[in-house]
C-alpha cells in the first residue's frame, strides 16, 4: 500500500513541479488574502495582531480547497479515473499518496503564509514547538478529509460549488482547534494549547483511517 | 395559574407558531405528493395498507 502511495505522491508532486500551479497560483492567492484581510480590518487598530492566528487558518482553509480541487482536476483529465481503476494500484495507496501530495503542497503554502503573517501583522512568534505540532496535525487532517471529500465531489458537474459546502463544515473543528492552539502558543501560555492539539490529532487519525477504508468504494463510483 | 398577563407573549407565540406551521405545511406537501405518486404505482408495489 505504501509503495503505491509513494508512487502516486511522486506523480502528483512531479506534476506540480512541472505545472507550478500551487507555487504560482495558490501561493500568491494566500498572500493576497492576507493583504485583503489587512485592508478590510484596518491595520492601525492593532486588531490584526490579535486575530492573526484565526486569519492564518482561514486562509489555509481556502488554499486547501484550491489544492484539493486541483488534485482531482488532474485525475479527471481524459479518462484518468478509469485508468486509475485499471491500474492495479491499491485504492488505500492512492488515497494516502494524494493526501501526502496535498499535505506537502499545503505545508509549503503555510510556510510562506506564516512569514507573511509575521511580517504584515507583526505577530511575535513564541511557543514554536506547539506551533509546529499544530501545523503538522492540522495539515494532515485537512489533507486527509480534503482528499476523501475531494474524490467524492470529483467528476460531478457542480463540484466547484459542492466541495466547499460539503467540506468546510466538516473542517470547522480543525479551524477551531488550530486557531486555539496557535493563540495559546502566540499568547505565551503554551500549556493551554496542547489539549487542542489532541483534538487535531484525533480528527486527522479519524479521517486517515476512514479515508483508507472508504477510498476504494468511492473510486468505484463511475 | 398563569393568571397574571404572560410576558414576552409575542416571542412565545412566534416561537410556537412558526415551527408548527412549517411542520404542518411540510406534512401536507408530503402527503399530497404521496397520493399523486401512489396512483401511478400498481397496488402490489405498495407494501402498506
Amino acid at each position, binding site marked *: 500500500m505504501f509503495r503505491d502511495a509513494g508512487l502516486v505522491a511522486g*506523480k502528483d508532486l512531479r506534476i506540480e513541479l512541472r505545472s507550478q500551479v500551487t507555487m504560482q497560483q495558490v501561493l500568491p492567492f494566500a498572500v493576497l488574502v492576507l493583504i485583503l484581510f489587512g485592508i478590510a480590518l484596518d491595520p492601525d487598530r492593532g486588531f490584526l495582531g490579535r486575530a492573526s492566528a484565526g486569519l492564518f487558518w482561514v486562509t489555509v482553509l481556502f488554499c486547501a480547497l484550491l489544492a484539493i480541487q486541483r488534485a482531482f482536476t488532474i485525475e479527471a483529465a481524459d479518462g*484518468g479515473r478509469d485508468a486509475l481503476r485499471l491500474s492495479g494500484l491499491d485504492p488505500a495507496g492512492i488515497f494516502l499518496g494524494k493526501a501526502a501530495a496535498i499535505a506537502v503542497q499545503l505545508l509549503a503554502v503555510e510556510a510562506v503564509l506564516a512569514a507573511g503573517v509575521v511580517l504584515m501583522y507583526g505577530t511575535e512568534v513564541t511557543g514554536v514547538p506547539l506551533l509546529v505540532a499544530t501545523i503538522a496535525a492540522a495539515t494532515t487532517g485537512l489533507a486527509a478529509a480534503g482528499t476523501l471529500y475531494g474524490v467524492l465531489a470529483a467528476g460531478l458537474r457542480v463540484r466547484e460549488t459542492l466541495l466547499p459546502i460539503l467540506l468546510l463544515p466538516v473542517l470547522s473543528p480543525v479551524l477551531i482547534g488550530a486557531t486555539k492552539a496557535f493563540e495559546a502558543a502566540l499568547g505565551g501560555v503554551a500549556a493551554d494549547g496542547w489539549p487542542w492539539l489532541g483534538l487535531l490529532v484525533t480528527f486527522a487519525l479519524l479521517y486517515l483511517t476512514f479515508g483508507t477504508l472508504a477510498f*476504494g468504494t468511492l473510486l*468505484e463510483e463511475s | 395559574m398563569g393568571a397574571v398577563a404572560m410576558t414576552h407573549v409575542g416571542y412565545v407565540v412566534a416561537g410556537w407558531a412558526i415551527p408548527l406551521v412549517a411542520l404542518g405545511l411540510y406534512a401536507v406537501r408530503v402527503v399530497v405528493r404521496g397520493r399523486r405518486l401512489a396512483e401511478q404505482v400498481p397496488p402490489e408495489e405498495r407494501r402498506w395498507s
Partner: protein
Amino acid sequence: MEPAVQLRGAVTLLGRFPALAGIDLDVAAGEIVLFRGPNGAGKTTLLRLCAGLLPLARGEGRVLGHDLADRRQARALRARVGLLGHATGLYDELTVADNVRFWGRAAGADADDVAAALAGCGLDGRLRDVPVAALSAGQRRRTSLACLVARRPELWLLDEPHAGLDHDGRELLDDLVRRAVASGATVLVASHDLERAEALAHRVVTLVGGTTAPASPPAAGSVGPEEVALVP
C-alpha cells in the same frame, strides 16, 4: 480451457439508458474478435463491461474466470486487463516516459518492461521526454498503447485502435496484437475500420441496439468486406 469471456443476457446501464440490453457472447482464450455495428450500438460499453469497469445491471458475466456480478472479483479482474479507448488516461503535464513508467510500475512492471514498451512503440527517441500535452493525437494514442503494453495484460480491449494512427502506427499495433496473442492474450476490438481490423480478427460479431445481431459465420482468415456486409 475456460472461455476468456462469457456473457449471458448481460444488461448494463449508462445513467438510465440500457446501453447493453441483454447480450450473449462467448470468446475463447487467444482469440481476436472484431465487433462491428453502428454508433451507439454498445461497442464501447461492452469493452468497458469486460474490463470490469461497469456493474452488471442484469444477467451474468464471467471474464478471465472473474464473475462480473461480484464487485470484488470485478475489481480484481481489472489488473489483468488493458483498455485502449478514446480517452488516453495520460497526465498531460508529465512526459511520455513519466506516463509509461507510472502506469507500468503501478501494475508491477519493472524498469526493463517500461523501456521495452517505449522501444516497442517507437517512443524511445525524440518523443521520450516530451510532455504529453505537446503530442499529436496519434502520438498520444501510441503512448497509451505503450502504457498498455508495459502492463502486459491477459485481455486486450481495443476501442477504435486504428483511429488516428498513421500507417506505421497501424502496422505496429497489428504486430503488437499478434505477438500478445502468441503469448496467450485474448483481444476484443471494436472498430469501423473494417478492412484493417478484419485482416487481424479471427471472428466478426455485429452489435446493434445493445445486443448481438444474428452471429455472422466465422470469418475464415481474411473475409472480403463485401461478403460480410451481405450477412444481416
